[in-house]
């Protein structure tokens, strides 16, 4: 019961490092909500209505959320689905730049033709609702300073009527805001990519149909990477960052279960002795 916690830190570190260096390849399976989001995006016609990806996360949660954002971008770019990239807070903009830099060259995706990187505009709620009126009036230019009126992709995209799906990749409660403010008012379909901490509370939103699908944590990202690879949407040799971490994830979870069992046995033994 009085074990120094630094021994546990060391055990956790070993359980993560060894599977990363020597992968085992433990099997994974796709959960229904990840499959639902994949199927929804897969059915969107190419060069038609856009997918609006709201990058609602910053570097602190990038290990979980950046892989899923990149996987969705790969899916959209392969299928020639127009993508609008949006960041609602200043620190989220760098994540969009990172994701696009890592993915666009593999598909020859061009700004203004295949995707539009929207700049930061303050006022989270106001931005969400203003997009419903007119995207061009809300932002004016893209992140690179080019007028939205001059971009070929924006010729047919005016507001949510021209958006097939909003995907909120978030570490906070912003997916709920998307569903409540935008899904309710404009009847746009909402998909979610979220950290594992928040995933548990979104199952009720999936059950009501307010979200069409959900990627939960690193596992959700790994599942989506596997799905796009199995469908042939990725180049050979594309690094599956999330899938690589699943062996380590499994090892640490087993360690946690063993430690909890040992802790409970020690606790009940101690209770018996003190009585």
């Amino acid at each position, binding site marked *: 019961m009085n074990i120094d916690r*630094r021994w546990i*830190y060391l055990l*956790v*570190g070993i359980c*993560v*490092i060894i599977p*990363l*260096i020597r992968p085992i390849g433990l099997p994974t399976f796709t959960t229904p909500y990840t499959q639902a989001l994949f199927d929804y995006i897969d059915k969107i016609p190419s060069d038609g209505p856009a997918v609006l990806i709201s990058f609602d996360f910053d570097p*602190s*949660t*990038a*290990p*979980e959320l950046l892989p899923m954002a990149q996987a969705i971008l790969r899916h959209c770019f392969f299928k020639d689905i127009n993508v609008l990239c949006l960041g609602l807070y*200043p*620190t989220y*903009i760098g994540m969009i730049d990172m994701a696009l830099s890592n993915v666009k060259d593999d598909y020859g995706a061009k700004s203004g033709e295949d995707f539009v990187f929207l*700049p*930061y*505009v*303050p006022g989270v*709620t106001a931005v969400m*609702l203003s997009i419903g009126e007119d995207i061009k009036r809300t932002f*004016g230019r893209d992140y690179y300073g080019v007028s939205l009126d001059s971009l070929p992709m924006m010729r047919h995209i005016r507001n949510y009527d021209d958006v097939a799906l909003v995907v909120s990749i978030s570490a906070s409660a912003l997916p*709920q805001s998307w*569903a*409540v*403010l935008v*899904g*309710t*008012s404009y009847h746009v379909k909402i998909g979610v990519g979220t*950290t*594992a*901490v928040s*995933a*548990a*509370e979104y199952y*009720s939103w999936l*059950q*009501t*149909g*307010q979200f069409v699908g959900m990627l*939960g*944590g*690193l*596992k959700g990202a790994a599942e989506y990477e596997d799905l796009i690879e199995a469908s042939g949407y990725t180049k050979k040799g594309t*690094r599956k*960052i999330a899938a*690589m*971490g699943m062996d*380590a*994830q499994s090892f*640490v*979870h087993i360690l*946690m279960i063993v430690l909890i069992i040992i802790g409970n046995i020690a606790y009940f033994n101690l209770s018996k002795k003190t009585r």
Partner: protein
Amino acid sequence: MSSNPWVWFAAFLTLCTFSFLWRDNPFYKFAEHLFVGVSVGYTISILYHNSFMPRVWEPIVTNHQYYVLLPTLLGLFAFAIFFKKISWLIRYPIAFIMGSTCGISIPRSFEGYIFKHMQGTITAVSPGLPPFLLISNIIMVIGVITTLLYFYFSLEHKGVMGKVANVGIWYIMLAFGASFGYTVMARVSLLIGRLQFLLHDWLGVIK
């Protein structure tokens, strides 16, 4: 091994932060203070270039749209909190934000948070569902009712009410357990991400 000095600096800062696991030390403090300073500086820079210049300076100075002065003044009132004699001015921007946010959010929140979820619970148990899903939904509806009754304090939790509330407690404990498990997964994922950076981007040990 990486030859990029910024990758080496990022690896150094990562190890400084991890050093806290041993004990608090000057390296950790340095990394923590640097992070806070850079975050604030970055945010100010983004706000200046993407918010102040295109939304305030250019409309007023370049385009002579002087009506923009009104919302600018309202925003400046927020800084009145730092001056005791005029600190009452902050009530105006607060009132505007509160009023507009309530007007936008309340009706939509009723539909999104309450009515939709009530509808989902009521229609969860319906004929025609596959047997496994039907049993699962019945368990879910029992959980909703018993958990709500646990938080109903106008009746004493004795007798039948006590037993029902007890069932609600079990559901709450199960939910906490699921949430804890997910939280462990999230924190481990962040550790995996950092170690992937150290082993792949910095040391080049893994592909």
